């Protein structure tokens, strides 16, 4: 398993290629890539800054990853989350899961991004033409995370 916080741009395609390379036990890999949108609520986004809580972030991501492994038969997990300032079109987050079969990989990938969004200490600051604003938490994200509660 790998959990990484990165301060500069990363290449999801290259990361996924490395994740899959040389594995013959894996039957399927699922992945989610989150990208900075150039528009939010009708306003254009010039840039986005991700703040986080160093230490707690890594601890929470490791815990969420361990939970995914406890629930699904995963062969490997990769989570990369960028912090700092980034531009529209650039990747923010990559989650990838590898399993013998697709269902576990797809479900675990969905679980990981849902819980990451609601349980890892990251905060988004958007820069718009009218100024900077902190992104508000969305009830739909809480609902998505809640479907995995037991």
């Amino acid at each position: 398993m790998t959990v990484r916080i990165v301060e500069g741009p990363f290449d999801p395609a290259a990361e996924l290629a490395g994740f899959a390379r040389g594995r013959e036990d894996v039957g399927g890999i699922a992945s989610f890539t989150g990208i900075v949108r150039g528009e939010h609520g009708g306003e254009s986004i010039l840039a986005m800054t991700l703040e986080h809580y160093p230490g707690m972030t890594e601890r929470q991501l490791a815990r969420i990853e361990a939970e995914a492994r406890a629930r699904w038969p995963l062969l490997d997990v990769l989570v990369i989350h960028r912090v700092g300032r980034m531009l529209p079109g650039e990747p923010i987050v990559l989650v990838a899961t590898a399993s013998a079969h697709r269902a576990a990989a797809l479900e675990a990938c969905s679980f990981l991004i849902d819980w990451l969004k609601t349980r890892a200490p990251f905060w988004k600051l958007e820069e718009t033409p009218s100024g900077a604003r902190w992104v508000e938490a969305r009830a739909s994200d809480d609902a998505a995370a809640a479907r995995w509660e037991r």
Partner: protein
Amino acid sequence: MNGTVEDMRVRYFAWLRQRVGLAEEELEPPTEVRTVGALKAWLGERHPRFAEACAAPGVVRAAVDQEFAEDDRPLAGVREVAFFPPVTGG
């Protein structure tokens, strides 16, 4: 030591950091401040804008020694408490 608590580091993140005007501070709360909720109230006396943020339910979240914590979490032996708005990563 004569019964006083050790210094505690209090950290603020995102817009809460901006409103308080500090990323972190080292504090020695009085002994009667025994829980996260009591610490919030005590900090609110020092930082009026922190008190304002805490007045709205569910807006200010806390972590104790880097674990999410509710208002009733005891502070005995705690080194670091953080306050922040709901998370918005991913």
